[in-house]
């Protein structure tokens, strides 16, 4: 009854009493028009981004064709360009970020929803979320001057000494400890996506009906069993959405990666070696690139990044919306 009333009252078109409110009608129309106009403007921005990238990349795509995607060469002197190395770097750093970052984020979310004393919950959540507020460039300089030297001196020799001798995965941890490189970039990305993923996980964990939790506890489940068998199955769509959102962030992250990855256009089996990603190649080379084919190839890298992140983020969003509906009903 209440719902119906609100719908009818608010939706009454303002033209119902035309003689009384002539100028108000005009204002109403203008205001509505303005909101609609800028709403469409959002779609236009997305379309504009896609279009400008396609236009900018046309020269490179005409020259290299689809082979651009799997060509390893990147040589500004001879003007031969291929995207394989940056794509490889983006994927590998994102995988490292997810492998390290997702369990950490899950741990943080479990701690905040299940263990944390209520008094500490808010300050701790804010503290973790502040990690998301720190700009990328700060992670960059901290990574370059503090974290990378630390890894080089203490962590990487250890990894090379232990995992480096294990068959199969040993090659990933071979070679000298450079400090900067793909591993360092992946680890910094893991820290950067932690607040995003953990805050979404925390939010979706809190949508689990208390009755489900309490029933499980009533049957004698331990906290971990409640999380693993009740909370996680109930929220799996939302959790996956959160992880994908973190993945989208990790793939597009620029400055932090540019500072610590070493910007070397080659694929090495060792994770310790320098590499490059799509975004770091752009940040590093764009302003120095000569107009024409070089710039156009860089913009093509941007187009590839745009397409990948668009689909990852759209899938993430779709899952989170499904989660919301589930929680709403």
């Amino acid at each position, binding site marked *: 009854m209440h719902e119906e009333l609100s719908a009818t009252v608010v939706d009454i078109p303002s033209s119902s009493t035309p003689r009384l409110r002539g100028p108000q009608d005009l204002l109403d129309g203008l205001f509505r028009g303005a*909101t609609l106009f800028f709403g469409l403007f959002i779609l236009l921005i997305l379309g504009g981004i896609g279009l400008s990238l396609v236009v900018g990349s046309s020269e490179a795509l005409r020259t290299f064709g689809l082979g651009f995607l799997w060509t390893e060469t990147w040589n500004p002197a001879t003007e031969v360009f291929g995207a394989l190395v940056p794509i490889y770097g983006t994927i590998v750093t994102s995988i490292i970020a997810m492998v390290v970052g997702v369990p950490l984020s899950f741990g943080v979310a479990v701690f905040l929803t299940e263990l944390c004393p209520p008094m500490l919950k808010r300050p701790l959540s804010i503290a973790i979320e502040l990690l998301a507020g720190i700009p990328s460039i700060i992670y960059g300089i901290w990574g370059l001057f503090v974290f990378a030297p630390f890894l080089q001196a203490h962590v990487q020799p250890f990894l090379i000494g232990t995992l480096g001798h294990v068959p199969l995965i040993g090659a990933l941890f071979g070679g000298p400890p450079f400090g900067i490189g793909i591993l360092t970039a992946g680890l910094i990305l893991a820290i950067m996506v932690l607040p995003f993923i953990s805050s979404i996980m925390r939010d979706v964990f809190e949508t689990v009906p208390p009755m489900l939790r309490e029933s499980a506890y009533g049957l004698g489940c331990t906290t971990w069993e409640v999380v693993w068998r009740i909370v996680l199955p109930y929220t799996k769509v939302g959790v996956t959405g959160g992880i994908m959102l973190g993945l989208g962030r990790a793939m597009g992250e620029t400055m932090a990666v540019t500072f610590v990855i070493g910007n070397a256009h080659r694929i090495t089996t060792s994770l310790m070696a320098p590499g490059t990603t799509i975004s770091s190649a752009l940040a590093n080379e764009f302003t120095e690139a000569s107009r024409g084919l070089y710039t156009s190839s860089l913009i093509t890298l941007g187009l590839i990044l745009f397409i990948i992140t668009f689909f990852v983020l759209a899938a993430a969003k779709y899952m989170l919306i499904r989660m919301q509906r589930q929680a709403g009903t």
Partner: protein
Amino acid sequence: MAKDLSRYAGRRRKNWIILSLSMFATAIGLFFLGAIMFALLTEGIAAIRPSLFTEMTPAPGSDGGLLNAIYGSAVMTVFGTVVGTPIGILVGTYIAEYSRGNKLGQAIQFINDVLLSAPSIIVGLFVYELLVVPMGHFSAWAGGTTLAILVIPVVTRTTVDMLALVPNALREAAAALGTPKWRITVSVCYRAARQGMLTGIMLAVARISGETAPLLFTVLSNQFWSMDMNRPIANLPVVISNFALSPYPDWQRLAWGGALLITVAILCLNIAARTLASFGSAKQ
């Protein structure tokens, strides 16, 4: 019975181990926050002195400050906020007040959420193609436009969320008095959602004031004092980035100083925004 008890002990042990790990994960997150702040403070404090705020960025080897970069960042951040905020609020209003859940409204909200997380470097490339290429040179206008585009999705998102919290009874009461719809939105809904919307704007400012990557393609930077919006202008993030990667100790020190400045400003904005938001929710 003994077997049951040992199984129970096993479950308890597993529970204990995993919950300890989760506590450890939280500690790791907090540790990194602490480690970054610690490094910023120890390295940055040395650079914080009056000359930082009164002198221009120096040539290598000489003394100087970051005045031109601070000015440039402030101008572009203000431009981005002033242009982006009203647009974001209007878009949010359309989604929350006018679309009433229709397909177009849902599509706009979806795209807005994708833009919210989209890599900022892509936005930089877009503005490069849109403004820098036709104009033929980098400019502060292009940088400000980039920041405005980054502000819109943040403000839109919080506006939608906050307008959704405004009780329908308020709208009905205003409508019953014969108030036109635009007036209801502006004088009733905005007013009720004011605090949350302000939080969104502060978070948007916090986000753009540290953006670096898109500015590389749009404003570049400038060694000297410039107020010409049509030319490259010095700005903190790009100066920090250039100076940190340089081999000169003076420049690196200034980079740390700038980094400390920017981080403290952003963290204060973040904390203030969240305090404001929680203050608002406590009042309701």
